[in-house]
């Protein structure tokens, strides 16, 4: 069994992972220092506007990923009506 960490191997996968991490880092220190000023942007405090931007960026990156990396068939074609009762149940029997 291959025990190594599961990582993206395709360029698209790697690029999207980088985008996901970028969005996450944008909300944390030190990136959040960029927005920590007492100025108003579109009528909102910079930090509130930054939070709204993160909301939009999170949605944007997921919509992009939906387009570029569709779910594998092993997930999309899993049929709930044919759930295996064997291995999944075995642990508590």
């Amino acid at each position, binding site marked *: 069994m291959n025990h190594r960490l599961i990582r993206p191997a*395709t360029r698209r996968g790697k690029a999207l992972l980088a985008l996901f991490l970028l969005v*996450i880092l944008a909300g944390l220190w030190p990136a959040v220092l960029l927005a920590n000023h007492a100025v108003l942007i579109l009528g909102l*405090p910079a930090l509130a506007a930054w939070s709204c931007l993160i909301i939009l960026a999170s949605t944007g990156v997921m919509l992009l990923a939906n387009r570029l990396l569709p*779910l594998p068939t092993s997930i999309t074609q899993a049929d709930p009506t044919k*759930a295996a009762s064997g291995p999944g149940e075995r*642990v508590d029997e």
Partner: protein
Amino acid sequence: MSEPIPLLMTLAYVAVALWLGVRARGSHRMDSLEQWGVAGRSMGPVVMYLLMGAGSISAYTFMGAPGWAWSKGVPVFYVVIYLSYLALIAWYCGPRVWAFGARLGHVTQAQAVADRFESPLLGALTSLVMSIGAMAYAVLQTIGAAYILEVMSGGLLPFTLNIWLVLGTIAIYLFISGQRAIGVTNAFQGGLMLIVAWTIGLWAAHRLTGDWWFGGVFERLRDTHIDFLTLPGGLGDMSFAFWTSSIIVSMFSFQQPVWLQWMSADSAQSIRRSASWLPTYYFVILPMVVVGFIGIFSLPDLERADTVALQLAFQQMPPILVGLLGAGTLAAAMSSSEPYIHGTALTWTRDVIRPLFKLSERRTGQLARYLIFPIMLLIVGPVAMLNPGNLIMILLVGLGFAAQMLPAFIGLFVWPRATRTGVLCGLSAGFIVTALFTVVWPNPLGVHAGAWGLIVNLPLFVAVSRVTRPASDATLARFMAIVAPRRPTSRSAGEREPTSSTIT
């Protein structure tokens, strides 16, 4: 009580929620885990969007968030950020969890952990310890709901009666319709909260500034309370370290109800679609936060910060808006309380009682429904009546502990080498550190106690996993077929042609 409209509107909300919840059952039999626990995996993307949105928006949004804005200022926006990141987690993990259910027959979170690590003990432990935070959360939301009814009735409905009124309502539709009731009522509650928050926020801003936007409020705030516009906030207690560590700890707290929400989707695609748009739901927090900021000018001498929205409503808003706020806040509290009660009943039955007494699947499904009654009668109700002062502390320890389960989820989703011994060692150490840094030395160096727990937990988990025996190849193969289907199973093959993908 001088004005009956707010109370009538709030009670009308309870009646509608009850009606919707009872009707949600339809013609389905509710004596199986598949139906009562995860609604027969039937929920489409729109319901999932509202379910996940409403489930994560608690009474905190209508009471706590305005209170934070009133007392601290912009630090309150950390909630918006971590909730958006939870959606990223849902986007990646949700479809895989759904496939665990569809292909491996899982229902609960602890069941997946037990199966992946070949350890019913670890599964039961997961179930029990995740319940600490879940029960505290359910109690807090029930207290919030009872408080709203008391305020809306002008004290006519006493707090204790309200607790049982709320729990009784939830018990009826939860017993009859299970997760289907949660789906339908949360969808209703989610829509209601959106309408209420934006109506109240825009109305309050217009009343203060004459504009239908929030700019005038913040211009005034900039002139009078400039420290409220930046970190560390008005009280000076939200350092960058606490901001960052709170977001990290919160986004990795995999709660049982969230897991059940993913399991309840009608397809993996539905989870992806709803998760992709989910962050937009959290714009709901913005107008309520603005109400808190308005309170800085209108109600400068409040005794309790978290009453700012209600006090403002009673003093300045027409009865119909007060009623809307009451209904919206009650919706937020109930939509957060019911999934935790349901999830706890489900996991205690499936992951603790069933292995102990060797119950059948059918018997387990029947028992789970009835377990909501002792949970409400013996735990949630009595503890809510006591209204203990240290409940927040219990909740913080519970949520800090939930984050300590992260190694188990790393093992489920990204690292096949993770072992049960590694998870148990990391978990134990992380829990002790989190408990100590919550109760004895709160948040040293301004870093969230849960983050300190993870700092100890994760290296220990990795080190112990590397020197202990991993799960069998057969078990790992079943999970890898879902989380990394294109990954070669042998190490040598993997080195030649790495084709696995994390974000696929």
